[in-house]
């Protein structure tokens, strides 16, 4: 029996004091959590749907990498004749997600920024209302896949495929290892590798052969990752290939929303005002929309096009307030294109430089 009274009597005083101390620490951590929870501003909370989806995607990604590392490292060990070790590595089971969360590693701003943005984009894209086209006209991405321009057509086909792959993986909850930008993927693979190794060391002590196998598996995972195959990168490639003229941008943006291709929308907007995908996505996902309106003005869009985009996004994203947008529409469409462009100029700086500037400001505010 696990917790019998006889057992309890035998507990030494020292054990009891230790347990009490641990409880005290836990109470401390809990209180800290409760305090920060209470003071969280409502608008910075994740809604339940985003929270659950984020948890699922994050877990699937970490587990995907973990499975890959275990399998390949076990193969390496088995190939070297160390079957028992391979077996132990394969069977090793620990909650890597939990371990990484405990260590605070998953709290990484850049990683979480990317993950939350991907989840949000997915949820908004799912909720966008499709647009019917007159006659037998196909949706925009299918049309682009059939144009004579081979570069555009192949990028459009690649985007169709990449989005189908991501959707299949998401719907089936299957591990999805390759959806992060290279730096984030690199970091995560080593974290997972360290966590797998920690479990092995705890179970059977350190072993240089196992370490080498884990390193080899991690390097293999890194080498096979191609960030250019992610839908975000392909969408950007497609936007560059289309290279929409000023008077085509509005229609293409509206068509992309009507085809529920938020990634294409973000890429076309980014291309039009010279932003990378991540920056354009940040602007598009902001519920206030202020920087999005500026960006649409900077891309030369007129009042009607801006209103249609705002309405489509508001209908798909409950965080947005279409009524207050309607109040401001006149002043938004009165912003001169040049003024909008210069207001957004800081965003067009090199991505890494911007990150460094942000970090500098954040740290000096502390």
């Amino acid at each position, binding site marked *: 029996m*696990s917790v019998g009274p006889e057992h309890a009597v035998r507990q030494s005083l020292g054990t009891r004091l230790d347990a009490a101390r641990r409880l005290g620490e836990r109470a401390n951590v809990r209180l800290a959590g409760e305090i920060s929870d209470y003071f969280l501003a409502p608008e910075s909370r994740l809604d339940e749907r985003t929270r*659950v989806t984020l948890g699922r995607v994050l877990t699937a990604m970490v587990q995907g990498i973990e499975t890959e590392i275990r399998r390949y490292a076990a193969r390496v060990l088995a190939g070297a004749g160390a079957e028992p070790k391979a077996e132990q590595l394969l069977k090793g089971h620990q909650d890597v997600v939990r371990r990484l969360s405990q260590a605070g590693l998953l709290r990484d701003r850049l990683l979480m920024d990317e993950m939350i943005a991907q989840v949000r984009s997915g949820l908004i894209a799912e909720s966008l*209302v499709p647009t019917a*086209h007159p006659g037998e006209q196909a*949706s925009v991405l299918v049309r682009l*896949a059939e144009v004579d321009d081979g570069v555009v057509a192949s990028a459009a086909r690649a985007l169709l495929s990449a989005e189908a792959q991501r959707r299949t993986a998401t719907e089936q909850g299957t591990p999805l290892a390759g959806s992060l930008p290279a730096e984030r993927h690199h970091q995560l693979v080593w974290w997972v590798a360290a966590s797998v190794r920690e479990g092995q060391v705890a179970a059977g002590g350190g072993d240089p052969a196992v370490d080498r196998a884990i390193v080899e598996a991690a390097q293999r995972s890194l080498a096979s990752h191609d960030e250019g195959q992610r839908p975000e990168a392909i969408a950007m490639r497609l936007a560059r290939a289309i290279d929409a003229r000023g008077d085509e941008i509005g229609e293409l943006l509206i068509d992309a929303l009507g085809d529920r291709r938020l990634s294409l929308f973000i890429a076309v907007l980014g291309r039009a005002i010279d932003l990378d995908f991540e920056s354009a996505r940040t602007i598009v996902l902001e519920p206030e929309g202020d920087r999005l309106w500026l960006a649409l003005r900077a891309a030369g869009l007129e009042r009607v096009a801006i209103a249609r985009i*705002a*309405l489509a996004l508001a209908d798909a994203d409950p965080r947005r307030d279409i009524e207050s947008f309607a109040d401001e529409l006149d002043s938004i469409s009165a912003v001169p294109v040049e003024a909008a462009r210069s207001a957004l100029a800081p965003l067009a700086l090199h991505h890494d430089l911007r990150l460094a500037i942000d970090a500098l400001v954040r740290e000096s505010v502390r």
Partner: protein
Amino acid sequence: MRVDGIPDVPVSHATLDHEGRLVAADPAIMALNDQAGGAVGEPLAVPQLATIARLARRLGILVSRGVCVADHEADLDLWIRAQPDGDGLRLAVSGWREVRHRSVAPRNAGAVAEAGDLVWEADGALRLTFVSIDAARRLGVDALALLGQPLTGLFTLDAAADGTLPMLEAVARRKSLNEQQARIRQTGARVVLSASVKHDAAGEFAGLAGVARVADDALPPAPQAGLSSSFTEGLDRALRTPLARIIAHADTIHAQAEGPVQHDYVDYATDIANAGRHLLELVDDLVDLQAVERPDFTLAPEPIDLADVARRAAGLLAVRAGNAGVAIARPLRELRVPASGDFRRALQIMVNLIGNAVRYSPEGGVVSVTATLSGGMAEAIVADQGKGIAPADQARIFEKFERVDPNEAGGNGLGLYIARRLARAMGGDLTVESMPGEGARFTLKLPA
């Protein structure tokens, strides 16, 4: 004004001036607006219509939305399109369907994907925009090569026995697609298609979202999709805290801790707290259900004392039994019955069994709890003096959402189902013997 029984009621129109005042309207809109206290020359009096009209006027673009408006005692589902026109606004209202009171949310008929189904989506020109890759691979089809191709590149459609083609009907009438017989073009495998129609903001046909299910037994049956763990996690988190708060507040009111409360309200508070506890139990059971239904569910056995487990479970329910005027006879203190199982789960099973026995016992009755070793197995037996269970019902009560007596209050019909699954996961079993009128005997067996 309501048009009952006509499936496709024509659209009604109205025009508004640049200030949003009603200029003219078809009878249906006019009647609705009159009822709300409006008139020609004044702003629209139906708030939902007025909001959409105002938004369309300010944005300067077409705005269309579905709304639900009150019309006498019934509610109407309406589809509103507000289109700015010169200085004014044209309003088109269609739908006019009476909302029927529904006990559950309406399900998107047609396309409910189950594990193993091929999920597909097509745009307004019936070109494939999505095909689930793994499911397609199992059917011998390369999903990625089909994206952008016509739907008929994936499926060959077969006419029904009466010569009709359900797909044509679905597209022409914009109704969900059911039971379209088809074959996978590349392999000839027979499938059945169902799909729901995607509508755009104006209600136009914008494509199909569907699933293809293998028609015959060509494929092994897919494992039944259970509750996903994220669903129960979310449920757990989303419900437990608010429910606990509701129960705590209701108990505070019941105890009149904040001062005297009218007697009726004290009773209501008891009802609220009891209902809250019932829901909380349901949440716990659903979380358990998710766990026990996973194919890889196992429990790590450890040495336990089944007599001790039975005594503890009886102790936990002593207060409830006392309130119901039922006595619990528990195993003697010195009795030991070694068994192998999971302590917490064994305790959970015994609490469930004794709780049921107390619930079904008459006042003054005795629930006897015994533990013994029999035939190499450890057994804990819970016997009551209730009305018993007919032989025909004895298998049924271990099913999901079944109850010993469906008319009895309390319980959600998951307890025995989960208890048996847990007992079996520990290498044991849970059985019942009973005759109507002679009480019931539940036996939990665990490996000794």
